[in-house]
C-alpha cells in the first residue's frame, strides 16, 4: 500500500465491493435481456409508476442506501451519540484531516454517482426510457456528501444527529423534487446541485476537525437545569417488580422509543400537506392513506435494529454476553421484546391518531372526511362502518407490530448467512413482483385466472405456513426452549385469534362472491405464527452457540 488514499480505498473495497459488482452484473444482464429477448410493447414510464420499473428501482434503491450507510460510517457508529461517528481509530493516522474527509467523500460520491449514472444510461439505452442523464447522478452524490457531513458532525445533544440529518436531507429532497416537478432544465439542475458538494466537504472538514481534537459541545447541562426548574428532573426510581419487568424496561430503553420518535419526525412534513388539500378531496384521501401507512413502513425500516442480536456492537451478529448472561429463559427474553414492540406500536399510533385529528380540525379538512364517512354509512350502514373503520385501524396497528417483530427470528439467529440470504430473497421478490403485478394489471385474462385461483393460492400459502409452524413447534419441543404447557397455551391463543378474526370478517363481508372458507384461509394467514414462534428458537441458537 503506497499511499493513505489507496489504504482508505482498500478498506472500503475489501468489505463493500460485492454489492457494486453484483449491481453492475445485474444491469449488464438487464441490457442483454433487452437487446436479445425483450419484445418492445408499451413504453415503460416512471411517472405514473410502471411495475416493470421495479426491476431497476428496487435494487438501485437498496444499493444506494447501503452505500450511504457504508461511506458515512453509519454501519458501525452510534447514531444517537453526541460524538462524531467518524471512526476514532482513523484520527491517530498520520494523515491531514482534509485527506481523512476527502478520500471517503470522493470514493463515496464517485461510487453512488457512477451507480446512478450507469442506471440512467441503461434506462435511456437500450431500454429507451426517457430519463435525465446527469442530474440524478449528481443528486445522489450530493445527497451522500451531505449525509457524510452531517453524520460526522459532533452535536451538543444526543439524538440531534438523526433529526438534523433527516430534516436537512428532506429539505434538499424537496428542493430537487420541486425543480423536477416544474421541469427545470438539466443545466439548471446541475447548477443547483454542483456547488453543494464542495460546501458539504467544508462542513465535513469542520466536523471531523472538531471531532479529531475532541471538541464536542455538551448542551445537556442547560436542558437538565431547565428540567429541574420546571420540576421534571430525574425522579428516584423504585425497584423492578420482576426480572421480566426489568428486561422490558431494558428493551424499551434500547428500542421502544425509536418508532414513535421517527414518526414524530416524519409526520409534520406529511401533515403540512393537508393544508394544500383543503379543496382537493382525492388528494386528502391519498395523504390520509400515506399518513396511516407511515407507522408500518417505518416499522419495517427499524425492524433490523430491533432484531439485532447485539445492539452494543453493530458489526457483530453474535449475541451480547451481557444479555446472554441474564438469568432469564430465551422465551422470557423474547417475551420482553414482543411486549416492547407492542407498547412502541401503541405509543406510535396514539401520536398518529392525535396528530391527524388535530390537523384535520386545524386545516379545515375535517368536513371532507365527514362527507366521505356519511357516504360510506349510506351504503353499508352505521354498525358496519364503525366495525370496518376499527378493523382497518386494528389491521394497521397489527401490521406495525408485525413489522417490528417478524424479523426477530432472522436477526437474533446471529447467523450472517441467514440475514444475507433473506435480504437477497426479499430483493428478488420485490424485483420480480413489480413486473408480475404490472402484467396482471395489463391483462384481463390474467386477472380472471388469478381471481379463480385465489382459493388454491391461499390454501397453498396456509399449508406452507402450517408446515413451517409444525417444524418450529417440533424444534421448540425438542430443544426445551418452550415448555409443553407454553406451547399448548400459545397454540390455543393463536386458534382463538384466528376464530375471532374470522368472525369479524364473516360479519363484515357478505355476498356470494367470497366463499366462507376463503375468509377462514385469510384469517389463518393474517394471524402471526411461525416467524414469531421461531424467535425464541433463533435466540437460543445464538445464545448457546
Amino acid at each position, binding site marked *: 500500500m503506497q499511499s493513505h488514499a489507496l489504504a482508505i480505498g482498500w478498506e472500503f473495497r475489501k468489505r463493500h465491493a460485492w454489492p457494486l459488482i453484483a449491481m453492475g452484473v445485474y444491469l449488464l444482464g438487464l441490457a442483454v435481456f433487452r437487446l436479445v429477448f425483450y419484445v418492445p410493447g408499451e413504453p415503460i414510464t416512471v411517472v405514473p409508476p410502471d411495475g416493470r420499473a421495479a426491476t431497476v428501482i428496487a435494487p438501485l434503491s437498496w444499493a444506494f442506501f447501503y452505500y450511504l450507510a457504508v461511506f458515512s460510517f453509519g454501519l458501525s457508529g452510534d447514531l444517537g451519540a453526541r460524538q462524531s461517528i467518524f471512526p476514532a481509530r482513523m484520527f491517530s493516522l498520520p494523515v491531514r484531516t482534509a485527506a481523512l474527509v476527502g478520500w471517503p467523500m470522493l470514493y463515496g460520491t464517485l461510487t453512488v454517482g457512477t451507480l446512478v449514472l450507469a442506471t440512467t444510461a441503461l434506462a435511456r439505452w437500450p431500454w429507451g426510457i426517457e430519463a435525465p442523464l446527469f442530474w440524478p447522478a449528481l443528486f445522489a452524490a450530493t445527497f451522500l456528501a451531505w449525509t457524510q457531513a452531517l453524520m460526522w458532525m459532533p452535536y451538543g445533544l444526543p439524538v440531534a444527529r438523526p433529526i438534523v440529518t433527516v430534516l436537512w436531507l428532506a429539505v434538499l429532497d424537496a428542493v430537487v423534487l420541486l425543480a423536477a416537478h416544474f421541469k427545470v432544465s438539466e443545466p439548471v439542475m446541475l447548477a443547483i446541485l454542483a456547488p453543494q458538494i464542495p460546501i458539504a466537504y467544508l462542513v465535513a472538514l469542520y466536523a471531523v476537525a472538531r471531532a479529531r481534537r475532541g471538541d464536542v459541545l455538551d448542551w445537556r447541562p442547560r436542558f437538565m437545569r431547565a428540567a429541574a426548574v420546571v420540576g421534571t428532573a430525574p425522579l428516584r426510581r423504585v425497584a423492578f417488580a420482576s426480572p421480566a419487568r426489568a428486561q422490558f424496561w431494558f428493551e424499551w430503553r*434500547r428500542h421502544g422509543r425509536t418508532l414513535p420518535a421517527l414518526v414524530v419526525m416524519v409526520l409534520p412534513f406529511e401533515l403540512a400537506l393537508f393544508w394544500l388539500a383543503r379543496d382537493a378531496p382525492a388528494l386528502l384521501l391519498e395523504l390520509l392513506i400515506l399518513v396511516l401507512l407511515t407507522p408500518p413502513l417505518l416499522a419495517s425500516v427499524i425492524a433490523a435494529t430491533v432484531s439485532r442480536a447485539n445492539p452494543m456492537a453493530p458489526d457483530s451478529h453474535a449475541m451480547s454476553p451481557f444479555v446472554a*448472561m441474564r*438469568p432469564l429463559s430465551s422465551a422470557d427474553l423474547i417475551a420482553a421484546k414482543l411486549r416492547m414492540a407492542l407498547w412502541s406500536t401503541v405509543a406510535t399510533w396514539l401520536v398518529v391518531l392525535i396528530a391527524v385529528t388535530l390537523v384535520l380540525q386545524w386545516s379545515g379538512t375535517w368536513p371532507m372526511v365527514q362527507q366521505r364517512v356519511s357516504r360510506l354509512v349510506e351504503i353499508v350502514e352505521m354498525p358496519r362502518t364503525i366495525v370496518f373503520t376499527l378493523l382497518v385501524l386494528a389491521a394497521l396497528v397489527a401490521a406495525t407490530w408485525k413489522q417490528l417483530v417478524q424479523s426477530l427470528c432472522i436477526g437474533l439467529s446471529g447467523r450472517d448467512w441467514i440475514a444475507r440470504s433473506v435480504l437477497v430473497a426479499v430483493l428478488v421478490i420485490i424485483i420480480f413482483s413489480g413486473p408480475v403485478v404490472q402484467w396482471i394489471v395489463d391483462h384481463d385474462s390474467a386477472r380472471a385466472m388469478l381471481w379463480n385461483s385465489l382459493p388454491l393460492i391461499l390454501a397453498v400459502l396456509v399449508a406452507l405456513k402450517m408446515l413451517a409452524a409444525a417444524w418450529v413447534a417440533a424444534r421448540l419441543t425438542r430443544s426445551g426452549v418452550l415448555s409443553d404447557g407454553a406451547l399448548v397455551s400459545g397454540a390455543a391463543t393463536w386458534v382463538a385469534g384466528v376464530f375471532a378474526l374470522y368472525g369479524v370478517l364473516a360479519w363484515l363481508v357478505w355476498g356470494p362472491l367470497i366463499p366462507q372458507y376463503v375468509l377462514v384461509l385469510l384469517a389463518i394467514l393474517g394471524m402471526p405464527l411461525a416467524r414469531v414462534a421461531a424467535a425464541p428458537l433463533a435466540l437460543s441458537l445464538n445464545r448457546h452457540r
Partner: protein
Amino acid sequence: MSASVSVSDPVISVIGLSRRFDAKTALDSVSLVLAPGAVYGLVGANGAGKTTLIKHILGLLRAESGSVRVFGLDPVADPVGVLSRIGYFSEENDLPGWMRVDELIRYQRAFYATWDDVYAEELRRSFALDARARVKTLSKGQKARMGLLVALAHRPELLLLDEPSSGLDPIVRRDILGAVIRTIADEGRTVLFSSHLLDEVEEVADHVTMISAGRIALSAPLAAIKESHGTLAKAFVAHVRSAAPLSTGP
C-alpha cells in the same frame, strides 16, 4: 490429559469437553471438577482456551462433545438455574454504555433474589462510582469496577473472572483481588479466576489448572505445584511453554 478433584458435590463438572471452531481445535477432551469453597486459578497463554472453557461453563457455548454441569445443572438447558447463582466478570466487559450507574444497579438487582443492596452501595462508594454517570463515560478502570460490582453484589455461589485485570492499573487490580478475597471469606463460595498473570493467580489461588493449546497441561493444588517446581512461573515454563499452541478461541 485431564485433572480432577475428588468431591461428592462439585460446583463445576466438565467431562471430556471438546470444541472446534472450523478447522481449529479450541478445547480437546478437557475434564475438570471444581469443589466448593476454594479459589481456582486457570492459567494459560493468550488463545490457550481459557475463555472458551469459561463460556462453556456459562452456557454461552454448547458442548460439541463431552458434558458440562454447573451446580449439577446443564447451563444450556437451564440457564436461569445456573446463571442466577453465578457472578461473572471479564475483560470484554460489555456493560450497556447508555445506562447510568444507578440504573444498571437497579436493573441488575431485579434478576437476583440474593441481591444485597447494602453491599452494592458499599461497593459503589468504595469504588467511587458516581450514581448518575453513564457507563460509557466511565474510564476503563471505573468500568472494570462497575463490572465487578454487578458481579459481586448478589453474593454469587460461584464467581467467574475471565482475565479480569487485563490492561488495568495496579489500583484496580488490587480491587479485583480484594473482591476475590472477600468472596472467599463468604463461606462455601467458589472462585474460578482465569489469567495469564501468574503472580496474581499465585496470590489468591488454592488450586491451579494450566491450560495449553486446548488441553489441561497441569492441575494441582498450588502448594503441591510450589513444592515440586519452586514457583508457579517455573511450573508454567515446564508444562505450558513447551506445548505448541493448537488453536485460538472465538
